[in-house]
């Protein structure tokens, strides 16, 4: 069952005078993992950050065109960025747990959004989120330890649990494994596959192998333009565009 969750229509992103994204249109489906690949500086992270309006936090970034979440324009005046970001969660390149306890890291989102009624409810949310992120068994006895005391891979799973805790509909991941070792990376990749049952997932990666392993759809970005978008198997075995082929076969990158 696939249905469209996010739709981008003719999206341009500018940083000041510089155009970072040029006329990108894409449909992102529920229940799938969509990967954005491309050489560094191609704009894939920039585009990802415009999907939950994180670009609003950069002083002179500007987005034109339409991005629809369930058919609703996320840049419309009626759309509150605060509510939007609760629905479209994000995981960053470097694990960035808050300097608080593991429990408080997870509880932070539900608390600001008022999603838990009382302590018992919150305990349930924390346990459920950590379980979903595959971290519960490792940390259940030390929920009051600081989140920063965990290993890199555990920190990143904590950040995923933190994103999951507010029950988002989409999770954006910006090179979530680039700071991790291969074993931790493998665990995150497994986790991504589990999570796609529940959430639409968009992942930016510069590792083509990772894109091939975890995603069902792949979009190839180059110099701010989306060159090609399709089934991952198609892109990697039979790309339509010469540029895609060059990149995948390692001519540049």
């Amino acid at each position, binding site marked *: 069952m696939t249905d469209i969750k996010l739709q981008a229509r003719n999206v341009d992103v500018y940083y000041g005078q510089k155009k970072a994204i040029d006329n990108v249109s894409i449909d992102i489906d529920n229940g799938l993992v969509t990967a954005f690949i491309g050489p560094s500086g191609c704009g894939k992270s920039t585009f990802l950050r415009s999907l939950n309006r994180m670009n609003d936090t950069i002083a002179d970034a500007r987005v034109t065109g339409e991005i629809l979440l369930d058919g609703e324009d996320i840049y419309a005046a009626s759309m509150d960025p605060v509510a939007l970001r609760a629905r479209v969660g994000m995981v*960053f390149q470097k694990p960035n747990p808050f300097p608080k306890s593991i429990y408080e890291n997870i509880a932070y989102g539900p608390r600001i959004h008022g999603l838990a009624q009382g302590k018992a409810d919150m305990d349930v949310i924390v346990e459920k989120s950590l379980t979903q992120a595959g971290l519960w068994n490792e940390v259940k006895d030390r929920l009051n330890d600081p989140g920063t005391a965990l290993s890199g891979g555990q920190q990143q799973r904590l950040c995923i649990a933190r994103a999951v805790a507010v029950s988002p509909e989409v999770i954006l991941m910006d090179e979530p494994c680039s700071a991790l070792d291969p074993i931790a990376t493998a665990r995150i990749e497994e986790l991504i596959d589990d999570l796609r049952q529940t959430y639409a997932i968009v992942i930016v990666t510069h590792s083509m192998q990772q894109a091939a392993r975890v995603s069902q759809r792949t979009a190839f970005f180059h110099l701010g333009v989306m060159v090609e978008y399709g089934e991952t198997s198609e892109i990697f075995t039979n790309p339509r565009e010469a540029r895609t082929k060059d990149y995948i076969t390692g001519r540049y990158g």
Partner: protein
Amino acid sequence: MILSAVLLAVLALGLAGWTFARNKARLLYAGRGSMHSMPVYHGWHFALWIVLPGLLAWGVWSVAMPTLVNGSILADPAAAALPADDMQRAAILSEARAIAADPSVFAFDPLSARLADPIRVAEGKWGTIGALLVLICALAGGAHAWTRVRAGFPARTRVERVVMAVLLVVSLMAILTTVGIIGSLVFEAGLFFKDVSPLAFLTGTHWSPANAHGGDISANFGAVPLFWGTIYIGAIIAMFVAIPLGLMSAIYLTQYATRRVRGWFKPLLEILAGVPTVVYGYFAALTVAPKVRDFAAWIGMNNPSTESALAAGLVMGVMIIPFVSSMADDSLAAVPRSMSDGSLALGATRSETIKKVLLPAALPGIVAGVMLAISRAIGETMIVVMAAGASANLSANPFASMTTVTYQIVQMLTGDQEFNNPKTLSAFALGLVLFVVTLILNIIALRVVKRFREAYE
């Protein structure tokens, strides 16, 4: 005087030597085309060998000469009439010295007029000997160095060694200043504590040095009201103003303001820090204090005083705002951006992110900043001198006149007392307490800041 003249002569010799040696080295260079050091370094080397021995001899002689002159005078028959009492003897001798330097000076004591001539003779004799000695040292040094102006001589290395020594000595000035501060405060405070027990000073609640007469004066030097006034004005009232305003300004500037707004407001805030404290003091006394008094009268206080802890504290708080704000600014900027990104991406608003993530993360730095601000506030003098008052009150009423440590230091040292009076010396005891407290605050704060920076690097 001949000694100053010889000093100039040594410097002139040095300059001449610099030119000679450089020229000689140039000729050598022209002859060979390769030397260890550039000619100019030979110039410097030679000049240093003239000037340094000369200066050294000059310094030694300047210290030694008064003793030698004194010895000559006491050997003079006229000195036999000098009184035995040390104080009187010193007074007459210093008068005689003044007459020797300038004959138009009037002599109160005929003896000093008679001694003036022997002094002049002795000074002339020893001065000439000293000048010759200085010149000999300078020339000997020069002669030694002249033989070194050779192609293979490492003049540069030698000169650089002197440069390093000068740099090191200059750097040690900082330690010397610190030692000087501690030494002079401890020494003078020690004299004070001979008359007043330290315990009475630190724990007594009655401060009235004006009534300190007779035997046991400890009871008049209880400094607790001063400490209280200092803390109340500097660490409580001023911080009530400075912490919220400074912190919120920093938050607005770092988290909300566009780059252009920040570019305007930040320097403007810094102007507040550049206004001299005497101007703040005048502002407090002229404008704020009368308003505070009127307000106190309006809420029903009897005879409120013009000088109040509140007026001084408020203005001091304003003065500290930019300080708190720039410390908070640095601390907030040191929190990695990924931290606030993480919170914003969860759908937290800016203010929620600031209150729940940024401020807790920046807290050590902010606390350290507040400690530094307090240390600055309690050491601030002019505002309290002009607006806080002289009465040592132990009261929590912000409209009361209150005095502080710094106010009393000024008070004790600007009168006409003799230096060794306990009242004057109490200023040094108060200074010692102030120094120790600010030092502790600074050391803790600097350490916290350092550890905090390392945590995020």
